[in-house]
């Protein structure tokens, strides 16, 4: 698992790449929460290189969304592959997160 970060105007684009599972989820969560903790209010998570998410990975997204909402920020997700979308859907996360097709859509939704 690899986390990338880059700033595009006032939006932080966080790439979550590889496998988000029980082994890697703590590291991913720490990085996301650190970004939110240093004051990032608009976060777009790029899942285009995310190959696998387990329940531990879903918890990372839920924790990050709860944290950023509590600090009056916004988070959007984009680029999920079909297998990942399926996991979001059956766990009911698609009602909590709108999954955007493109980075542009995601950025627009939180800007």
């Amino acid at each position, binding site marked *: 698992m690899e986390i990338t970060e880059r700033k595009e105007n006032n939006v932080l684009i966080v790439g979550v790449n590889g496998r988000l*599972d*029980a*082994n890697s989820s703590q590291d991913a969560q720490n990085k996301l929460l650190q970004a939110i903790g240093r004051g990032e209010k608009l976060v777009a998570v790029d899942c285009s290189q995310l190959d*696998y998410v*387990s*329940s*531990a990975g*879903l*918890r990372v997204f*839920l*924790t990050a*969304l*709860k944290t950023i*909402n509590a600090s009056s920020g916004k988070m959007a997700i984009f680029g999920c592959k*079909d*297998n990942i979308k*399926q*996991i979001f859907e*059956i*766990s*009911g996360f698609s*009602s*909590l997160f709108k999954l955007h097709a493109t980075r542009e859509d995601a950025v627009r939704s939180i800007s």
Partner: protein
Amino acid sequence: MTTDMNNELIITLKNENSEIERLNGLIIRLADEHRLSEKEKYDLILILEEFLTNIIKYGYQDSKEHIIIVRISLDAGEIRASIEDDGVAFNPLDSPDPDINESLEERRIGGLGIFLIRKLTKKLDYERKDGRNIISFIKNIS
């Protein structure tokens, strides 16, 4: 890894996180041999990984090495698998489902692993026998 006469794949794992990666490698090979779809392969890896993660994380009260046995067989239209461990008694069927209609504020963090397994399997059974947990499931495949 062995295959017995009934064409059942038997995988013996230790209670270490690194073993999950090894299991996944074996499942990918099995899935490719049987030409499972990408979704079927993903689901099977997810189901097994959720169970194994729970067993390794919560199943043991000592720091000794324990053996977990995974058995998998593929028949026409379905995968049958079981996971056997000598950890503390844990019946996943007793685990309450999270309410997936809750709002973000209400939504609890956790309880999702077993829920995902329930959603991705046709049949899920649990048995406690001779001090061992035996979970078995059936999953449809095309």
